[in-house]
């Protein structure tokens, strides 16, 4: 199993804990990744809203670079990257006018994009390519007793529900259960975290983060597991402001990959739990048979 790897800007910046924990986990499971050379920003959701043609060309450049690696599948862990690359792919294949714009732009830098690379999310790869059985075999320190609220955010299931249900995704639930954790049932799995509104319209944005954190605590969760750098940032970084405006709702928010590393018994520099603002204090015991 080998995938072209598109980290995206977040995974090199605020979301570095995601990359730092995900890559060792994939290696541990025998999944090979090859980082695409000279990749550029996917444009995120903001650029699409400003200029679809240019945004699509920017995203398609990454698809073209991925095609050049000869690998048929591409891993995009960041939710925004995953959505935008998928969207660009759809646009190229469904709208001939858009394909013409993109082809001209790529042509000017000597690139071509067929538009047939499968853009995959790590959850999709872990569940459907690696499989839960293989993951369970690697669990040496099951997360017994850890109550986790699985948080998917909006972008990996909307508008394209490619590998999970749109309204009630369950892939991370299954993954966390395989790690031995207790999955908390909460109905806010795909409710918006506030996105970039936390920066531009804090009153509205922070309120959405507050609702998520409060409900997770209320349902007895010890930690929120997420798949998205922006969600993780919003839920982890604004506790002081939220406490000042409403009430303290302190609960750690980590990437699912960090919990996987923890359950696999990977060293601390590969689970990078110290990067969280609200620390997760949980030491899983070795499995009885291990």
């Amino acid at each position, binding site marked *: 199993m080998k995938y072209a790897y598109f980290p995206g800007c977040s995974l090199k910046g605020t979301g570095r804990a995601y990359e730092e924990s995900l890559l060792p986990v994939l290696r541990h499971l025998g999944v090979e990744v090859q980082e695409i050379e000279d990749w550029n920003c996917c444009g995120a959701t903001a650029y699409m809203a400003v200029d679809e043609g240019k945004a699509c060309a920017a995203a398609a450049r990454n698809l073209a670079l991925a095609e050049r690696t000869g690998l048929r599948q591409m891993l995009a862990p960041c939710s925004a990257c995953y959505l935008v690359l998928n969207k660009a792919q759809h646009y190229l294949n469904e709208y001939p006018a858009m394909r013409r714009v993109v082809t001209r732009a790529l042509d000017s830098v000597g690139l071509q994009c067929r538009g047939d690379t499968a853009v995959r999310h790590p959850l999709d790869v872990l569940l459907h390519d690696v499989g839960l059985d293989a993951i369970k075999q690697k669990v040496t320190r099951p997360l017994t007793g850890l109550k986790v609220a699985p948080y998917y955010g909006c972008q990996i299931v909307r508008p394209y529900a490619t590998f999970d249900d749109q309204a*009630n995704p369950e892939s991370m639930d299954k993954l966390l259960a395989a790690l031995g954790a207790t999955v908390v049932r909460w109905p806010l799995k795909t409710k918006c975290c506030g996105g970039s509104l936390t920066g531009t319209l804090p009153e509205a944005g922070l309120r959405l983060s507050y609702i998520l954190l409060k409900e997770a605590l209320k349902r007895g969760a010890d930690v929120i597991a997420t798949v998205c750098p922006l969600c993780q940032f919003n839920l982890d970084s604004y506790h002081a402001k939220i406490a000042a405006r409403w009430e303290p709702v302190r609960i750690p928010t980590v990437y699912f990959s960090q919990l996987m590393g923890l359950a696999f018994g990977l060293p601390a520099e590969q689970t990078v739990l110290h990067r969280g603002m609200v620390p997760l204090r949980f030491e899983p015991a070795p499995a009885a048979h291990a």
Partner: protein
Amino acid sequence: MKATRDEVRIGFYVCHCGHNIAALVDCPAVARYVGTLPGVVLSRDYKYMCSDPGQELIQQDIREHRLNRVVVASCSPLLHEHTFRSAVEAGGLNPFYFHMVNIREHDSWVHTDRILATEKAKALARAAIERVAHHKPLEIKKVPIHPDVLVVGGGIAGIHAALTLANAGKKVYLVEREPSIGGHMARFDKTFPTLDCAACILTPKMSEVGSHPNITLWTYSEVVKVDGYVGNYTVQVKRKARYIHEDLCTGCQDCIANCVYKEPKFADEFNEGLGKRKPVFIPFPQATPQVVLIDPEVCLNFKRNKNPDGTPVVSDKCKKTCVEACGERGAIDFTQKDELREIRVGTIIVCTGFQTFDARRVPAYGYGIYPNVYTALEIERLVNASGPTGGEVVLRGPKNPDGTPRKPRSIGIIHCVGSRDKKTNLWCSRVCCMYSMKLAHLLKEHTGAEIYNFYIDIRTPGKGYEEFYNKLLEEGTHFIRGRVGEVTDWAMTPEEEGKLVIRVEDTLAGVVRRIPVDMVVLATGLEPRADAAEVRRLFNMSCGGDGWFLERHPKLAPVNTFTDGVFLAGCCQGPKDIPDTVAQAGAAAAEALALIDRGYVEQEPNTAHILDNECSGCKSCIPLCPYTAILFDETRQKAYINEALCKGCGTCVGSCPSGSIVQNLFEDEEIFSEIRGVLAYD
């Protein structure tokens, strides 16, 4: 009259069909072109060929110009081939000296370029001119119709159709899959908009079916095979083992009272699983026939492991107190097996109904997640006096601290669940607005709760329906326009704690609202049954892209199918309410009666026959025939075709290695000259 190529005198007519054809096809130009072709003695264009003057024109021309072939270029032969054949016959010609060209559905309606469409019309016309010269006179055969009728499905549609036919003196077989007739209607509490009790109006008809001398009622039975053709169908029906001899069971139900299970334990299908039944049971008090059945899945006298073919194995482990209770009547028989019966009928009415949309497919509405989310059908049982709670509306979820069941004080009814939605079903299910309002009224009556209806549009097209809506508005039921986003249990305020919160954009007020309620009712839509595709193949019917069985014409042949002698009624054709279903069932019965009372059907002579001298007796055609119309004469070692069974599909014609099978109207020279005609046009 025998016409050779030399004597051919063709009359050609191109129809404008108002603007339908003339807008895209230059009809006079087509007529002028065809007039130059060999054999054509007369070529005209005319505004409406199907009109009486149009038909008279043909007849007059046949006489005056001694025409012996006629070609009309107009609409689809499905619509008017019969009209023109009759006109040609009235003019004194054999009707099969006529040929029709479709320049409407195949040309003007599907193209946008007038010049190219005109050229296409000319090419198609030329093909027909070449072909018609080779036509031969043929004879329409008459085949008698078997007077018995098969009605498939014992819901209100099947019941009404069967009774109509039986009252007209026809013998009817009514085959129903479930152990009792009654269908969905038997489960409803009241019916809209009059609020008369569903059971009160349905059960008299059910018992009439049960006791009617002209109706053979087979419940717990399924049609497994249909052979034959209009007027002469042979049908195989599987009568599933109910482990009870229907003729011996008196319906006393002593066996149920004496079952080793003292209390009912298993989910009761009739009550949507809200109630319980025993392994030996009768579906509901008014079930017809009044015959119990035994569920081998849970009865202790059967093993849990089945035979390799799926049939149950008797364990004989039970004390069989039911058999004791039955005593001398001896109706219980654990060794009963499924039984195949063969019947002969002339016509078939399919009334197989619908299934309700599975609310689990919209997880955002929480059915199966939150116990207090219900489907509308569950509520029908819950408010029913003979339902699992005796008509008391209590919640399925956590009980009061003192152990009594909670009663809802606020109820939200969500319309259009699984309807009018690109993600599920596109269509409007037609009955949900009305039944939602009926349930709103009944729930208010039973509980006094605040009721909220969440709707996209209120659709009340029916007699007294809009008035019913107004009544509900006056009763103080709340109506909120907006498709509900989700039903959830995360509370934002103390008032929301422990409630189900309905999140919805109120599109009239222009705000997003959160409405906490105790109970949510999902107005699930109607959809084709899961096995509709198999049923469709069984009866050789068509279906639309949505899966509903297709009527022959949406306006003018609403109960006919594309298979002669097979009719449709009720929701298997599309969502409809009880009045429409009954009207359609009556119409289907009338169509069947019209066929039966005429006594015969005319058979298209487009059948195949085998040239005796050339048949090598290889038998390769025999297994290919879908209608088992080809037989083999052992003494002469030749195959021959039963023309009464042949449907003119042409499969054998194409497959015969020696080319010795010929099909009327599709003979080699007819087909080849038609192809030549299209190709010769440039």
